[in-house]
């Protein structure tokens, strides 16, 4: 912008150089075709090194019996570990729990944030930023700290929540020790943390929608509800699909630290999920093959879900210029 154009200088030189470059590339068509791959090479190398290579090693491990001690032999056992995983009595419960967790988080970190984000549009200026920050802050609290605080809140003797419940005429005991309540408590704690993340994603999606559409529709006499359902939500759908995918794929990981800190999967496996089960078998029971086999199965399962969502997002995506 600030370049001074001299006669016979730069601008004139560059086409010449470009032509020369093109000529050189034409002399080496292979080199020219390789250039784009060189650009993505660093990313690919890192991805292979940190993601795909461990993934392959994991697949290899799933056919072996090994207790993760470097000096102990690895014994090839074929598909025995897969058979064992599928016959584990804990697996069915863990899978069912995982489905319930995902359902609950779809509600808490997708549906609820949508409502919050839409409502917060009517708050203007600094107040809106403050309001969104308030919702987002729990996301920044570490799971250890939040589970400690929630444990006190739920403490049966002196906790605030049981006290309120008792005042309302519904006395509750130790919710973490109740097979019917332990999972709900984990959902509440994780949901409280994840709500902010959902609101952030949806607020960002809303900010990207051009207000002219709504204004134009209003000019044509569209009512607010019509604008919401016919314009805003469809334009928001890529964000919603992304958030749903994140929720499905990551909810098992979000819940993991809270389960470990608050219920350890209990009582009687009532609050465990598949990742916690994986961890227990791999790193507490020293059965690398079993947890690797479980990992492969979950990878395939979640991979299929991800493919479905990728397809869905292609169909739903709008290109708003």
């Amino acid at each position, binding site marked *: 912008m600030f370049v001074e154009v001299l006669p016979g200088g730069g601008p004139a030189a560059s086409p010449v150089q470009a032509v020369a470059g093109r000529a050189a590339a034409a002399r080496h068509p292979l080199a020219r075709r390789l250039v784009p791959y060189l650009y993505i090479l660093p990313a690919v190398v890192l991805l292979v090194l940190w993601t795909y290579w461990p993934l392959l090693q994991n697949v290899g491990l799933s056919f072996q019996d090994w207790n993760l001690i470097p000096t102990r032999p690895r014994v090839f056992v074929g598909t025995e570990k897969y058979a064992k995983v599928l016959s584990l009595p804990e697996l069915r419960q863990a899978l069912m729990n995982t489905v319930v967790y995902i359902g609950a988080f779809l509600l808490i970190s997708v549906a609820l944030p949508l409502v919050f984000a839409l409502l917060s549009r009517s708050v203007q200026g600094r107040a809106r930023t403050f309001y969104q920050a308030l919702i987002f802050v729990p996301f920044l609290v570490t799971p250890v700290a939040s589970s400690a605080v929630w444990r006190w809140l739920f403490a049966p003797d002196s906790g605030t929540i049981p006290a309120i419940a008792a005042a309302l005429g519904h006395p509750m005991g*130790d919710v973490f020790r109740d097979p019917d309540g332990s999972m709900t408590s984990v959902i509440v704690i994780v949901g409280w943390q994840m709500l902010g993340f959902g609101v952030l994603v949806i607020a960002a999606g809303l900010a990207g929608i051009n207000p002219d559409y709504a204004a134009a529709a209003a000019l044509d006499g569209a009512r607010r509800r019509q604008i919401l359902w016919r314009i805003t939500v469809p334009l928001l759908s890529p964000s919603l699909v992304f958030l749903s995918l994140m929720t499905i794929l990551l909810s098992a990981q979000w819940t993991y630290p809270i389960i470990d800190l608050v219920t350890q999967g209990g009582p009687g496996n009532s609050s465990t999920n598949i990742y916690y089960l994986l961890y227990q078998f791999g790193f507490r029971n020293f059965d690398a093959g079993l947890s690797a086999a479980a990992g492969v199965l979950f990878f395939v399962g979640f991979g299929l879900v991800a493919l479905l969502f990728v397809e869905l997002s292609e169909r739903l995506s709008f290109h708003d210029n």
Partner: protein
Amino acid sequence: MLSRRKTLLGTLAALTALGISACGTGAGTGQNQAASLIPELGKDQKVEITFESYNLAQAGVWTDTIKGLIGDFETAHPNITVHAQAPQGGGAVGSNTVSSVQTQLLAGHAPDVSQLTFDSLDFAATQLGAQPISDLVGAKAVEDHLDGAHPFHPNAKHLGDWNGKTYGVPYVFSTPVLFYNASLLAKAGVTDPDLSTWDKVADVAKKVSAVTGKPALDLNCTSKGGSWCMQGIFKSNGAQVLSDDRKTIGFGSDAAVDTVSKLAALSKEGVLRNADINAQYEGVIKGDTAMVVTSSALQGMLMQASKKAGWQLKDAAMPGFAGKQAVPTNSGSALFILSSDPAKQRAAWEFIKWMTSDKAYTEISSKIGYLPLRTGLTEKGGSLYEWAQKNPLLAPNLAQLDRLQPWVSYPGNSYVQVDDILATAVENAVYYGKDPKQTMTDAAKRAQDLIH
């Protein structure tokens, strides 16, 4: 789009096949057996060792006492530097000692000395690569150290032995003790209670519950993480978790089912509170709990808590079943050498000797509350004599040492899972009304499959 995805999947499948064949050869080299004794350290030979201790994951009296002892060791042995660390990873204190070592082994640098709990003795000696100390320094040197001016109690001395060799030197442990809040009991009109049997405990608990309106007894043993003392309760009723030949799981036996049924009855009568171990600790520290059967290692912390809050702390031995002698089991840990470098092994042995010396037990017992395994220290002329006289809480704990039975470690790679299965079954039967017979026999059957 579709074709691209197909190519990707194809590549992945090909790579997968490659990965399987590549990973097939990872055989280990086996352990080196030390044929001769390791040499003494040279005069100017500098050695650095790493010491991993779960006590360093516990803030307060635990960390302070252990750090103090390490500092004193370094002053006495200026050539040896000790890097002290807590186990890696999460989980309850003392529950992850082996997995932490194993993770570091995989990364190529395991701690040289590690404090491992007794439930992993089998695994540590046969799989993890713990070194047979009696081979490294000679059985006589080990025996001489364990004797000394104030010998180890005979029931404690060989708890870290495996197949006739010393792998671990017993370090800190406790017995199950019934701590009670004497001020709270007095409010219910109970003073100087007889708490020798579960029936008598239940009677006292009911009196306290009549005043407070809530269950009055907490039991570490029946909640997850309390299996060490659950083993003692089983033994008190003639049951065993594992047969003496280490081949048969015993917690499905009639005696074991009867044990669990009796505890379930306590729960049903409203005597026993359903709480996890952390909640139990919090309850007793806050002064809410009337009675708790827990590790005597909590003694130091409870004394501080009771003094601050102004209630009187008393204790009794672990209760038994009517007409039968109670059999306490130990919790806790031994010190193991994991290093294969002779110089580090020698330094590790010097360090272990220091941490299990008269001086160390004087500090560990008086400050934390673990048992002084060199029991002579509490007798007249010993460094703990005055402390023992002033501390009535110690007597039941010490007396239980004479009846102590070891905390049994399960064989095989799945020993943690076996323990988990037992703990889950006990919780289900005691707290959640599941049929004890069905629950315990099912659990025993599953566990039996895992120990082979």
